C-alpha cells in the first residue's frame, strides 16, 4: 500500500484547485438545481392534464361542441380548418374533430395523448347522444406516492449529473495539468503514478458529498420527491457511480493533449448514454435487440440502481447486478487509464 502522505496531498491539491475556481463551482452545484427547477415547472404537479383538441369551424363536429365542452378533461378550441391542421402538426392540439357529414377524428395513432384525447372526446360525444353505460364503474383518483414523472426523473438527473461532472471535471483537470506540463513535472519526482490517478478518483468522492445532497434536498422541498429506500443505500449507489465515472473520466483524458481533444472524446463517450440510459424516459423503450448494449452502459446501471433505491425503496442488494456493472467499468477504466496515460 502507498503511504498516506503523497496520496493525501494529491487529493488536497485537486480539491483546492477546484474549490478556488468559482465558475466550476457554479456549474457543478448550480446546474442540476436549475435543471430540476425547469423540469419541475414542466412536469411538476399537473392537477389533471387537459387534453387540447380542435374542432373545425363549419364542420360536422361543430354540432358536438357543447358535449365536448362539458368534458372537464378536454380543452376545446374552435379553429378554422387550416389552423386546426397546423395546431395538430405542431402538437398544440392532440386531436382534430372535423367531417362534412360524418364526425371524423383526425390524429396520429403513434402519440399517446392523441389516443387518450380521442377516447375522451368520443365518450363525451356518445354520452351526450344518450349512449348507454352498461357497466357501472367507480373512479378512484387517489394518487400513488412517488409515481409522478418528477419522482422518476430526479434519480435520472442525479445520475446524469454524476456522469457529467465526473467526466468533465476529471477530463478537463487532467488535460489542463498535462498542457501546463505539470504531469511531466510530477513524474520527474518519485511520485507513484497510481497515487496520482487514485487521488483524482478520491477527490471526486469528496465532491460528491458536496454535490448530491443539494439536489436531493431541493427535490424534496420543492417537489416533495422522497427517497423511499434508505439514505445509506442511496449513498452507496451514488459513490459507486461517482467512482465509475471518475475512472472513465481518467480513461477519456488518458491521451488527449488539448482541451479540444478531450472534449471530443468526452462527448463521444457520453452521447450514447445521454440518449440510451433512461435519463428523461425509460430505457426499456428501446428495442430488445439494443437492450444488451443499453443495459451494459454505466449510466443505465447507475440510473436503474438509483431508481431502485430512490423510487422503489428497495435494499441495496436488489441493485446488485447494476453495482457489479459499475464496478467492472471502474476497474476497467482505472487499469486502462494507468496503462495508457500520457504523462507529458
Amino acid at each position: 500500500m502507498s503511504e498516506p502522505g503523497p496520496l493525501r496531498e494529491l487529493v488536497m491539491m485537486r480539491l483546492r484547485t477546484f474549490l478556488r475556481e468559482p465558475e466550476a463551482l457554479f456549474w457543478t452545484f448550480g446546474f442540476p438545481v436549475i435543471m430540476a427547477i425547469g423540469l419541475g415547472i414542466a412536469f411538476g404537479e399537473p392537477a389533471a392534464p387537459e387534453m387540447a383538441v380542435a374542432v373545425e369551424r363549419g364542420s360536422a363536429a361543430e354540432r358536438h361542441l357543447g358535449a365536448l365542452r362539458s368534458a372537464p378533461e378536454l380543452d376545446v378550441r374552435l379553429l378554422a380548418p387550416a389552423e386546426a391542421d397546423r395546431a395538430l402538426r405542431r402538437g398544440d392540439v392532440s386531436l382534430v374533430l372535423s367531417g362534412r357529414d360524418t364526425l371524423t377524428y383526425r390524429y396520429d395513432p403513434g402519440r399517446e395523448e392523441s389516443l387518450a384525447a380521442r377516447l375522451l372526446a368520443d365518450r363525451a360525444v356518445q354520452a351526450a347522444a344518450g349512449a348507454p353505460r352498461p357497466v357501472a364503474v367507480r373512479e378512484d383518483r387517489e394518487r400513488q406516492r412517488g409515481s409522478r414523472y418528477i419522482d422518476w426523473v430526479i434519480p435520472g438527473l442525479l445520475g446524469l449529473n454524476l456522469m457529467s461532472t465526473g467526466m468533465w471535471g476529471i477530463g478537463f483537470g487532467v488535460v489542463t495539468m498535462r498542457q501546463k506540463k505539470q504531469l511531466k513535472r510530477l513524474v520527474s519526482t518519485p511520485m507513484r503514478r497510481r497515487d496520482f490517478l487514485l487521488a483524482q478518483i478520491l477527490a471526486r468522492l469528496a465532491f460528491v458529498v458536496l454535490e448530491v445532497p443539494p439536489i436531493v434536498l431541493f427535490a424534496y422541498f420543492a417537489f416533495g420527491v422522497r427517497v423511499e429506500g434508505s439514505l445509506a443505500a442511496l449513498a452507496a449507489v451514488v459513490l459507486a457511480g461517482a467512482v465509475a465515472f471518475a475512472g472513465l473520466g481518467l480513461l477519456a483524458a488518458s491521451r488527449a493533449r488539448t482541451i479540444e481533444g478531450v472534449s471530443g472524446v468526452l462527448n463521444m463517450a457520453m452521447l450514447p448514454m445521454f440518449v440510451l440510459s433512461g435519463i428523461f424516459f425509460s430505457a426499456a423503450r428501446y428495442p430488445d435487440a439494443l437492450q444488451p448494449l443499453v443495459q451494459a452502459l454505466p449510466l443505465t446501471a447507475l440510473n436503474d440502481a438509483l431508481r431502485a433505491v430512490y423510487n422503489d425503496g428497495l435494499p441495496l442488494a436488489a441493485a446488485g447486478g447494476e453495482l457489479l456493472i459499475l464496478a467492472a467499468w471502474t476497474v476497467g477504466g482505472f487499469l486502462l487509464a494507468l496503462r495508457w496515460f500520457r504523462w507529458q
Partner: protein
Amino acid sequence: MPDLSEPIPALRCRGLHKRFGDTVAVKSLDLEVRRGECFGLLGPNGAGKTTTIEILEGLTPPDGGEVEILGMRWGRDSERIRARLGVQLQETELPDKLTVEEILRLFRSFYPEGRTVEALLDVAQLGEKRRTQTRNLSGGQRQRLSVACALAGDPDVLFLDEPTTGLDPQSRRQLWNVVEAFRAAGGTVLLTTHFMDEAEKLSDRVAILDRGEILVQGTPRELIRSLGGEHVIEFASTAALPAQALLALPGVSEARQRGGAWLLTVAEPHRAVPALLERVEAAGGELTALNTHHATLDDVFLARTGRALRDE
C-alpha cells in the same frame, strides 16, 4: 583529468542519440559530470540542450546510447534514481491556485527523505509568500519556488533547464544564490542555458552544444584561452582590409568577419589597437565602430560556428 577518488560520476552518458521525425536532436553525445561539480550545457535554442537534459532526467527515452545516473540506470533503478534527483523543467506552470506552502508540501510528500518545508521556504527566500497563491508571485519568485520544489527531496543531483530565462537581473542573481548554496553543500548541478554569463558564473565546466553535438568542452577559462587571446576587438572601417593584414598586427591570433564588422582575438589590446588605427589610416579609411571586450563563451561559440549564440 578524471578524479580517481570519485570512481562513480554523478552523470555519464555515451553515444546518446535522439531524433524526432526527420530532425536529429542529439547525435552521439558523450558527457560526464563529476560529483560536486556544476556542469553547464551552453548552446543556442534548438541545439539539443533540453532533449539531452530530459534524457538524463529519464523523461525522454533515447533512441540509442547509454545513460548512468549515480551509477544506476533508468528502467532498472528508476525509483531509486528519482529519489535522489531534483528536476526543474523549462516552462512548467505550477498549479496557480495553490499557495507556495501547499506546493512545497506536495512535492516534499513524494520523497522518502528530504528537507522540511520551512527549510525550503528559507532557501527560496519565500517565507513571507508562504500563503500566496503562485499566480500572484513574480517571475523570479515563481522560478525560485520551482527550484525549491526540485530541492524538496534533498537531491544529490540538481537539473536546471534554462532556469533564468525571462528573469530580470536581480531575480537572476537571487536564483544563482540558491544554486550556489546547493553547490556549497556538495550538490552536483547540470545546467542548461543560453546565457554565457550564467554558464561562466555557475559552471565549473561547460560543454558548448550546437545542432545536437558537443563542439567543445572544458572549464570556461580553458575554452576562452583556446581562442588564442583573452580579448576581442570589434571594429568596422570604410577601408577594405584583407584578413592577412589584420593577422599581421601585433598579438592578433584570429580575425573573423561578421556582418560588416571584423572580430580580432588578441592577447594585448593596448598594443593591437594603435597598430590597427595606423593600418586603417594607411589604407586611407577611417573607423566607423570600435570596441573591445574580454573574450567570453559567446566568442568561443562564434569562433567555432561563425554564428552568434543568441541571434536576437
